[in-house]
């Protein structure tokens, strides 16, 4: 049932841009597709499958966003996926692309993402208009930060997590970003700096929150025969899992976990590996609390022990589970659906090409996305 040896990532590209005023996000996608195909040694004519999601503020799409971007690129793909699991979407789409390649539905699939959330001043706080479920929460002024803050508040109350422990996640990501010339912020950061930054939605401070950028990235997936002739050594997509939680915050339960508890074990089982086998993890870090909940929900530590796990130094490059070696969304890059960068940095680590902190000869990486308001997750296991 596993995917071992059937699907490879052969191209990866992250735009070095962090601000792109005057640029349409579809053009940023074109830059990323070009970059990923050049990395693979393939051309746009080889692509028969295309995946993106571009309907959020700052992403440029309106209706049928996957088709809109394909049109902009000038391609007519025979396999499409626009699954919207928020920031986890690129990981969901990579998993679906892998299934398509393994079953012969597609040969070369590009998963691409870009947004101009900085220059476009994207508003992530105003809910979509319309009737139905949003009507019961939209009138109350829930912001994106506040949605995550609900989980942080309950985690602190019930399990004793401290603001200092959350801040350590941001401090580690900033330390990793120092080496990355493209990172949005590279200056050293302390726990005191995080706690002294303004509260955006209690208990989360500004520096508990990811950066907001204009940027994008893309990867190219294909099967083993074509992978053998690509420019670089293939990185194998070994396992995949995804899961939907809730969209409206009144439907979340419990507020101290994510559905990583579902997507993680499924991805590991498909890959035939355990958490102990992993050399590092690229974990979606929209907010510091996102990382803490994810570490616990994936099972790297027990529920309620995420704070102590972070304090132990486990997340540092020399620790038992180095994370976000490019600086993550907290310091390097977060235009919107950051999941694409977890995959790109996973590929770069396995190739020895990280622009941030390159680990010594990693063989197995977990990439994990969390989308929406802790709404959905996707987990991908990569190996070389």
């Amino acid at each position, binding site marked *: 049932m596993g995917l071992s040896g059937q699907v490879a990532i052969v191209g990866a590209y992250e735009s070095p841009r962090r601000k792109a005023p005057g640029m349409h996000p579809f053009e940023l996608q074109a830059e990323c597709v070009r970059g990923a195909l050049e990395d693979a040694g393939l051309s746009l004519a080889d692509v028969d499958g295309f995946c993106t999601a571009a309907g959020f503020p700052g992403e440029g799409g309106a209706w049928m966003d996957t088709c809109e971007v394909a049109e902009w690129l000038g391609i007519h793909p025979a396999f499409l996926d626009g699954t919207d699991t928020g920031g986890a979407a690129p990981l969901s789409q990579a998993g679906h692309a892998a299934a398509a390649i393994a079953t012969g539905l597609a040969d070369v699939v590009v998963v691409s993402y870009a947004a101009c959330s900085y220059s476009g*001043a994207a*508003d*992530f*706080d*105003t*809910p979509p*208009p*319309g*009737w*139905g*479920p*949003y*009507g*019961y*929460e*939209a*009138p*109350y*002024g*829930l*912001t994106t*930060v*506040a949605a995550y*803050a*609900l*989980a942080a*508040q*309950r985690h602190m*109350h*019930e399990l004793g997590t401290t603001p200092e422990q959350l801040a350590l996640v941001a401090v580690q990501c900033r330390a990793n970003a120092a080496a990355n010339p493209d990172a949005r912020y590279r200056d050293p950061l302390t726990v005191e700096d995080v706690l002294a930054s*303004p*509260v*955006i*939605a*209690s*208990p*989360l401070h500004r520096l508990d929150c990811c950066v907001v950028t204009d940027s994008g990235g893309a990867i190219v997936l294909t099967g083993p025969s074509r992978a053998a002739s690509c420019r670089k050594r293939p990185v194998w997509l070994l396992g995949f899992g995804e899961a939907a939680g809730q969209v*409206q*915050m*009144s*439907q979340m*339960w419990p*507020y101290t976990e994510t559905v990583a508890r579902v997507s993680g074990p499924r991805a590991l089982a498909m890959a035939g590996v355990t958490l102990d086998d992993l050399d590092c993890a690229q974990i979606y870090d929209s907010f510091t609390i996102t990382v803490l909940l994810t570490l616990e929900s994936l099972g790297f530590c027990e529920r309620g022990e995420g704070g102590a796990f972070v304090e132990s130094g486990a997340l540092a490059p020399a620790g038992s589970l180095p994370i976000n070696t490019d600086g993550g969304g907290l310091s390097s890059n977060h235009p919107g659906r950051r999941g694409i960068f977890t995959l790109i940095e996973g590929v770069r680590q396995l190739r020895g090409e990280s622009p941030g902190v390159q680990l010594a000869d990693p063989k197995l990486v977990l990439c994990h996305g969390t989308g929406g308001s802790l709404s959905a997750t996707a987990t991908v296991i990569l190996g070389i």
Partner: protein
Amino acid sequence: MSGRPKPLPVLGDELSRTYWEAAAEGRLLLQRCRACGAYQHYPRGHCVRCFAPDPEWVEAAGSGRLHTFSIVQRTSDPSFEDDVPYAFGIVELDEGPRLAVNVVDTPLEELACDLPVSIVFTPAAGGIALPNATRKEAG
């Protein structure tokens, strides 16, 4: 006030119309499954526990605990800019379901997880009344 009006519920279907018309009269409606007895919010035409159709409407007691909350200090939604700081909360009602609210008429520094609260109704535009939470009076 900011230029843009606040988002309001659209009473575009029977379920939401029933819920919001009751709220305008100061009544919080929940649904209870006729098959398994589970309470739920927000309203649907089926039970989300057992998928049995046509749950019955029941009036909530209007009492619960503030399960979690956040005091919003910054927003990119212009219709709420003039309101900061304000409290968004999730109330766990005595019947079980959880409800999104603003915590009103309660000093923000007194907010805490599991604080006992009562449901109150705050008038909004267009004849809408929003179920909200306020700290329960002692005794």
